[in-house]
């Protein structure tokens, strides 16, 4: 139920409906955010939470519904109007100029000037320093954006909003790119802001963070508001159930691994990044048949280059990579695939699918050249369709008549299912999954994890690379921590907690067993 319109609320959105063509992204959604609180918006991917916030920030216009700021009805036509009403938004992808300093980025677009002509950077810098001190948002105002960490860049985005006089801050999935420690710091910053009278709306699908940070949580499912609850006194399981509409197991069910022969063997691997610096340094790892090895680590510690080297997209400057004893380094991607390696790539839209192609064509992106599949010069269209229909059925790819349609039109989860189905149809000896659940909702995540475990049980060696620590901890039989291009330490599942892993991921050391 919508609350009475009153000045005790920073933001009230009543009866918001928004459609895109015949698709209703939001239907009659109410949101009441009390002043001085942290209010989280929880929902699966595509539930409509970002759409709702984009309406508030003026990026979209609602078809119907009213928006009140401090009890006053407002018309937010565009982000400029939103900013005038004291609303600031930190997007998932930062909008910063890499070669500008922190201060320059913060004032960009609302620069203070001397007499309306020349920039008054001194004044601007002082304003930034004041904000930094007021909220404990430690950043160096003179550092270049490209030299500071992702979490610092996020602070710059927050400062940018505050500099423009934001009273209500919208944070769109702010923790996706942060380490455990950085998340704690961010939550502390949020609490400081609230103490000073600011209001924060945070979009997330991480239950743990809601518990750690928020006062109130609004759950949205398929464009409808399901519930608004005080966070204290609600369990993670209850929230998860409200989000997906049925009970979801948060823990992955699996039996003890029965590791067999070594399939993937990487020894002393070195590989360089775009800047010609060693990104992978003396990397050693073995993955056996019938086990899942997870690589935990923060983005940017050489995972990308490791995978590119394994897939022969960049050369290995030293060391060997072998699959069942056959060295594959410094050959072609095709060679690795022919040795029984299948890869579920990190970026499904860029590396996994040809979005302009039909689902049929994407399904046979590797199979098409198999002489058993297509013996002649042409592609057997009947076989292609039958094969794809099989995958659609087996992996529950929706809509089930998507075969002849553009792959780009599928939702993220269904796109991922097409890739997973295609890769597993190769009967790989080694399956490598990089961030396989990135951006997927709880239901789809469950499917992906079950599939990985099923392949393991069939005797496939599985290597999982993920920046989500929980995922690595839940799914892997062995957990390897990657830091600065090499493996820090390897643990059996269940012998280590996330604090320890977080510490190792951040370059700390750990002496215990």
């Amino acid at each position, binding site marked *: 139920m919508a609350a009475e319109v009153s000045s005790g609320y920073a933001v009230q959105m009543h009866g918001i409906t928004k459609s895109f063509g015949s698709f209703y992204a939001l239907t009659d959604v109410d949101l009441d955010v009390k002043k001085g609180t942290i209010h989280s918006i929880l929902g699966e991917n595509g539930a409509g939470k970002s759409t709702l916030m984009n309406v508030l920030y003026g990026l979209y216009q609602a078809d119907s519904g009213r928006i009140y700021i401090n009890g006053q009805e407002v018309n937010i036509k565009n982000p400029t109007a939103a900013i005038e009403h004291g609303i600031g938004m930190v997007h998932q992808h930062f909008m910063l100029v890499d070669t500008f300093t922190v201060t320059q980025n913060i004032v960009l677009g609302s620069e203070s000037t001397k007499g309306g002509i020349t920039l008054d950077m001194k004044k601007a810098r002082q304003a930034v320093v004041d904000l930094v001190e007021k909220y404990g948002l430690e950043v160096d105002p003179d550092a270049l954006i490209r030299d500071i960490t992702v979490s610092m860049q996020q602070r710059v985005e927050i400062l940018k909003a505050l500099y423009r006089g934001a009273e209500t801050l919208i944070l769109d999935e702010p923790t996706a790119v942060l380490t455990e420690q950085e998340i704690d710091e961010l939550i502390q910053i949020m609490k400081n802001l609230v103490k000073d009278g600011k209001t924060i709306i945070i979009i997330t699908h991480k239950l743990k963070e809601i518990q750690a940070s928020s006062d109130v949580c609004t759950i949205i499912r398929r464009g409808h508001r399901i519930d608004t609850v005080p966070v204290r006194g609600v369990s993670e399981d209850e929230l998860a159930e409200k989000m997906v509409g049925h009970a979801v197991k948060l823990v992955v069910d699996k039996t003890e691994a029965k590791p067999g022969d070594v399939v993937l063997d990487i020894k002393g691997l070195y590989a360089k990044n775009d800047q010609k610096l060693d990104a992978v340094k003396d990397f050693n790892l073995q993955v056996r048949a019938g086990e899942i090895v997870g690589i935990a680590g923060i983005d940017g510690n050489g995972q990308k280059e490791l995978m590119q080297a394994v897939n022969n*997209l960049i050369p290995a400057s030293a060391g060997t990579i072998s699959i069942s004893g056959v060295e594959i380094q410094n050959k072609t*991607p*095709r060679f690795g*695939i022919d040795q029984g390696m299948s890869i579920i790539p990190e970026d499904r839209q860029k590396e996994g*699918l040809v979005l302009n*192609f039909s689902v049929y064509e994407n399904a046979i*992106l*590797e199979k098409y050249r198999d002489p058993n599949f297509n013996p002649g010069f042409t592609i057997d*269209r009947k076989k292609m369709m039958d094969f794809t229909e099989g995958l659609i059925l087996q992996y529950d790819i929706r809509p089930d008549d998507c075969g002849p349609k553009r792959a780009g039109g599928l939702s993220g989860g269904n796109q991922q299912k097409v890739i997973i189905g295609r890769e597993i149809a190769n009967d790989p000896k080694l399956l490598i999954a990089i961030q396989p659940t990135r951006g997927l909702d709880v239901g789809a995540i469950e499917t992906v994890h079950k599939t990985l475990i099923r392949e393991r049980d069939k005797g496939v060696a599985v290597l999982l690379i993920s920046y989500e620590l929980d995922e690595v901890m839940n799914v892997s039989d062995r957990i390897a921590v990657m830091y600065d291009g090499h493996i820090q330490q390897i643990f059996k599942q269940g012998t280590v907690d996330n604090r320890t892993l977080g510490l190792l991921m951040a370059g700390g050391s750990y002496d215990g067993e």
Partner: protein
Amino acid sequence: MESKGRKFLKNPFVLTVIAIILGFLVAMVVLAAAGFPPLKSVGILIKSMVGKPKDIAAVVVKSTPIIFTGLGVAFAIKTGLFNIGAEGQYMMGCVAAVAAGAVLDLPAPLEILAVILAAVLASALYGGIVGVLKAKIGIHEVITSIMLNWIALYFNNWFTNTRLYHKPATIGTYPIHESAYTMVLYHWKKSEAGRAVLKSNDFLKQVLGRNDINMGFAVAVIAAIFVTWLLTRTKKGFELRSVGSNIDAARYTGINVSKNIIDSMMISGALCGLGAAFYITGQSPHLLNTLSATENVGFNGLSVAFIAQSSPIGCIFAGLLFGGLLYGGASLQSQVGAPTEIINIVIGVIVFLVALSVIIPQFLDKHVRKAAPKTETVGTDKKKGAGDAK
């Protein structure tokens, strides 16, 4: 649900036709502004394109090389490459055709085959250079092919003046041997019997006697069908399109990206080479001249591919339209006195509007959304009315 009318307007073929009609309207405005009678001028233009069998035949002949270069460019676009080097590839094909045809003297079928093969190979290799530079070193194809276009022009001029090929007292080479000619019924036309028939039959006289009607157009149609088949039905086409549509995904799935870029440029070049081969073997003067500037057969192919929205079959029709406008433009000048630049304006406007026409579906979508509630009520009213009538 989309209404029928809206779907009709979103059809790319319909959009192209609208663009062409608008092109003519703009031309009429320009003609009127320049002081020429617009309706009469356009009437003359169209009549001189399709008025007599002779004209239609001439348009087909004029269009053939442009259809081929259009096909080459369209093929490259379909596989993710912008072959602005069609011009140079076409010129190298012409040089190779003359190089082979003026020296070799074989029996007709062999001679024809040899000349065509020489032209296709030369053009394919010339396109291949662009492909190799892009695939191996990463230089953008537009830059290299523009450079190579100039090299082809000067190579043509050098070749024309070599001692072996230069025909004294002319600015050109010796023509190729007659055994390489691909005009339809060429020898029969010149025989006693042939001349007698042509004299008595006006239609045949117009089509065969007055024109270099040749085998090129039929081959162009076959080539367009072949290219469509290659792209949509074969493994090779699948690879080429994958690389063209998403090079990263293609690389990840083990497709040899460099090889496919090179292959694509070579096939694109080969199609331009076919155009060159049938120009040299099928149209007078069957030789090369020293050129002060490029003849634009390849550049016109770019326009053809755009008007056809890179559909190979569409290139046949777009090529005919283009050839027709070039041919008809000449009559416009002689009969109305309007400069041929008017024709260039028409062509420019059509290409511009076709490029612009991709916005129309987006515009409709925006318009539809705003009008949605209105149409809904209209719909229910109608239903009600129908119910009452029953």
